[in-house]
């Protein structure tokens, strides 16, 4: 996020796109609700009529995968009605003229044909966004989990730059991070192309710095991103895998390919707190610690580094993950230093990483609200709002984008679009939340939201179990006849191990980031044999009972 979460309540307009905020980021949604009560406008672009959309001033219910059309049409309106911030563009950006040219083809009327959003609504959204001073964009995986995810982000960035909505309180570009420490994992260099703090592995000066610090020669080549890694695993080119804290055969797209890869993989190490679908393939399993059992930091969506503190001991012989990684490195022959505690590890990273050089565990003890990077020195109070006084990189480049359809579109054989995501009550592979009674009471099994019209046409009733089939796999799920989805569209959560949405999803990746296309694939629904009556009992479908309070 270029802004901070506490700035949201002072917004005058929030443009929320591809974010089911009230379910995926409930506390950020509370800030949005507060802004709304104080009179801020809320514009929501989402294929589903989610809670945020129902409470929005304007809901742009676009067809899945047509974001580029919608956003380019908004840019078209802003450019052609001269609602741009000319001064900001001249002072802080490059390449605007090319974008002006590129968006000419994207008229609101044609956008209506492609996206299903009325042209008048596109105009209203564009005008309100451009002419409101404190206007912030908020987006999540609905923008990025496409083969054109990077294009979607570019389109949003173009809107931000042409209207000068950057470097101001409550006005900026705000991706809301999915996991507790996605931001921190990237900041720490757990990416194939960057050392900590986004220093490229292909940059010789950076490489030399890390070689000197770590005392070994380092590879000068970019590594594989996760999407590519999983594909190479399936092809047999990745022979050994170390997986810490991710259930990849639930979470990755097109998981039957991942399973095939794991079957032929020569060696798999898992570091986990529970057995999961991936540990079934493991050669070695390390029992690890959850957040309550270790010290460290998480970095949240607004770049806020905050402390995690050990409250209880890990169970049995389980160990803190940082200890396991150090122990393994030493046994494998690398002299990992004897860190006394995670504070020393953080210090080593901060010393090599200008962006967080001013952050330390000691300072975090004094800063109860955390420290937001960039924070470059011990006296730097951190950066709640980024890009104040102009883009941090100097001049921000506009990006010319052209619409590309999603990789797999519905056809006669697979006539429905499936999007997947999270719900409020469960979290990812749900190894944690399915062990608590509340989430289980609310959602005990997988479901697929189907529009009333489609359900009627297919002769399927609410709560009936059906087979959901894509080119890559099939699962059984319960039909939720729901007004939330558009006709022709369906939606399913990804939480359920016995009914994995990711057996269906498409692993076609974005051409820059490799992110899989979780939000658009083609499926069909098939009725199940009726010998069972309309509904299967959850036990017949192998639903696990994981909650010990229910045992």
């Amino acid at each position, binding site marked *: 996020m270029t802004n901070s*979460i506490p700035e949201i309540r002072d917004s005058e307009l929030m443009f929320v796109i591809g974010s089911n905020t009230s379910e995926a980021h*409930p506390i*950020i949604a509370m800030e949005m*609700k507060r802004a709304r009560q104080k009179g801020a406008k809320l514009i929501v672009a989402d294929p589903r009529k989610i809670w945020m959309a129902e409470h929005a001033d304007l809901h742009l219910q676009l067809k899945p995968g047509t974001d580029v059309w919608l956003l380019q049409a908004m840019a078209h309106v802003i450019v052609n009605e001269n609602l741009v911030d000319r001064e900001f563009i001249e002072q802080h950006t490059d390449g605007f003229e090319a974008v002006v040219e590129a968006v000419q083809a994207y008229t609101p009327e044609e956008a209506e044909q492609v996206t299903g959003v009325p042209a008048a609504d596109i105009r209203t959204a564009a005008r309100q966004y451009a002419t409101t001073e404190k206007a912030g964009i908020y987006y999540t995986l609905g923008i990025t989990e496409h083969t054109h995810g990077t294009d979607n982000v570019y389109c949003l960035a173009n809107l931000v730059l042409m209207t000068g909505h950057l470097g101001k309180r409550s006005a900026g570009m705000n991706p809301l991070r999915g*996991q*507790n*420490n*996605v931001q921190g*994992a990237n900041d720490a260099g757990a*990416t*194939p192309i960057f050392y900590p703090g986004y220093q490229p592995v292909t940059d010789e000066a950076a490489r030399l710095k890390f070689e000197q610090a770590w005392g*070994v020669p*380092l*590879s000068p080549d970019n*590594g594989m*991103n*996760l999407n590519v*890694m999983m594909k190479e695993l399936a092809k047999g080119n*990745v022979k*050994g895998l*170390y*997986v810490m*804290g991710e259930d*990849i055969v639930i*979470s990755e797209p097109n998981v039957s390919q991942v399973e095939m890869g794991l079957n032929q993989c*020569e060696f798999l*190490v898992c570091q986990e707190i529970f057995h999961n679908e991936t540990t079934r393939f*493991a050669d*070695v399993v*390390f029992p690890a610690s959850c957040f*309550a059992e270790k010290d460290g930091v*998480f*970095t*949240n969506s607004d770049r806020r*580094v*905050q*402390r995690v*503190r050990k409250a209880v001991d890990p*169970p049995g012989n*389980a160990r803190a993950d*940082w200890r396991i*990684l150090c*122990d*393994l*490195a030493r046994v494998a022959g*690398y002299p*990992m230093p004897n860190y006394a505690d*995670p504070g020393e590890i*953080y210090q*080593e990273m901060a010393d090599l990483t200008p962006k967080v050089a001013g952050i330390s565990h000691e300072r975090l003890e004094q800063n109860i*609200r955390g420290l937001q990077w960039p924070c470059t020195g011990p006296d730097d109070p951190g950066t709640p709002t980024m890009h104040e006084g102009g883009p941090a990189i100097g001049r921000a480049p506009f990006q010319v984008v052209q619409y590309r359809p999603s990789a797999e579109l519905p056809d006669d054989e697979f006539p429905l679009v499936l999007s997947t995501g999270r719900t409020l009550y469960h*979290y990812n592979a749900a*190894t*944690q*939340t399915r062990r*608590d009674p*509340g*989430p289980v*009471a609310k959602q005990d099994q997988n479901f697929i939201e189907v529009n009333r019209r489609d359900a009627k046409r297919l002769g399927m009733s609410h709560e009936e179990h059906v087979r959901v089939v894509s080119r890559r796999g099939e699962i059984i799920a319960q039909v939720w006849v729901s007004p939330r989805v558009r006709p022709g569209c369906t939606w399913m959560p990804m939480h359920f191990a016995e009914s994995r949405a990711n057996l269906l999803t498409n692993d076609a990746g974005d051409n820059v980031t490799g992110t899989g296309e*979780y939000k658009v694939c083609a499926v069909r629904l098939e009725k199940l044999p009726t010998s069972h009556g309309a509904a299967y009992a959850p036990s017949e479908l192998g639903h696990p009972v994981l909650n010990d309070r229910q045992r």
Partner: protein
Amino acid sequence: MKNEFTIWINGQECVAHEGETVVDVARRVEVDIPTLCHDTRLEPAGACRVCLVEVEGERRMQPGCAWKVRPGMKVTTESDRISKHRSVLYSLYASDHRVDDESLPVETGNGNQLRQLCAETDLIPLEPVAADRVGRPDDVNPYIAFDPELCILCARCTRYCDEVEAVNAITLAFRGSETTISTAGERGLLDTTCELCGGCIDTCPTGALIEKKAPVERPTDSEKIRSTCNFCGVGCQLDLHVSDDRVVKVTSPPPGETMNDGNLCVKGRFAYDFIHHPDRLTEPLIRGEDGVLHTASWEEALQAAAEGLNRVRAKHGADALGFVSSSRCTGEENYLMQKLSRAAFGTNNIHQCAAT
């Protein structure tokens, strides 16, 4: 800052701003005005009357939580008149409240601010009132319980549900002495729009709303450890209540203190059973010749893992290895994982689910 001006509280000169209330200014200058229905996250309600103060020029006492400051305003927060009012008011509340052997409102483990106020005051003995308020004893939701005998109808819970969580699941229901906190059709919370955030429990000043998971007999000697929630990317701060090496309850720091402003969602507040779940992995495991995972020592497991990964590297090269780090783990652990991948095994094939 908005229009700044001076007011006097108990003769003390105070800086005040347009739009602030008497309680806002008093809290800033550390003058104590008791409140029950007041929560900084909510619009003032002036419902409990505990915060009545004298304002020069006003014939009646006024609720400090709702009374907006004006330039030159003179406020008195302690006087015989106010003391008498509080004494009568607390006594009335106590007469309509379950009390303990000391005739003080009972403590349910969630903090009862009325009990504290009563303990500091000479209560007037009054006949107990047999209120007709009812709860929903059949509500099977696993997290939130309501005890109507401890409710003072300040409506913090219903206002929180409307104004902050904005799902409007609970409401003041019925009239007169039957007034209570209920839902549409008196349904259980699982059958309403309730999202089980537990904000109603957090804001309740008397412990009428309590956690089913952390019930009355919860040890009172639990220690609070400040940490960061491990679910989504908002980064809410939590206080983990620890007793006997177990997390027995999770609460938010008070409103205003951290970025989440006292708020948590269902997962952050309640979904902590996994921490001490019997399914937790407690021993290292190595897959044996029989194809089954067997318990092993740490030395054996580390040796096996290091050998296995080194073997792949020796046979196929470092780039035949892949390292999947975790955005659920700490920053330090992600740093170590990429260092392990790059420095110990020589490959940049390190990523995590940020791309997915």
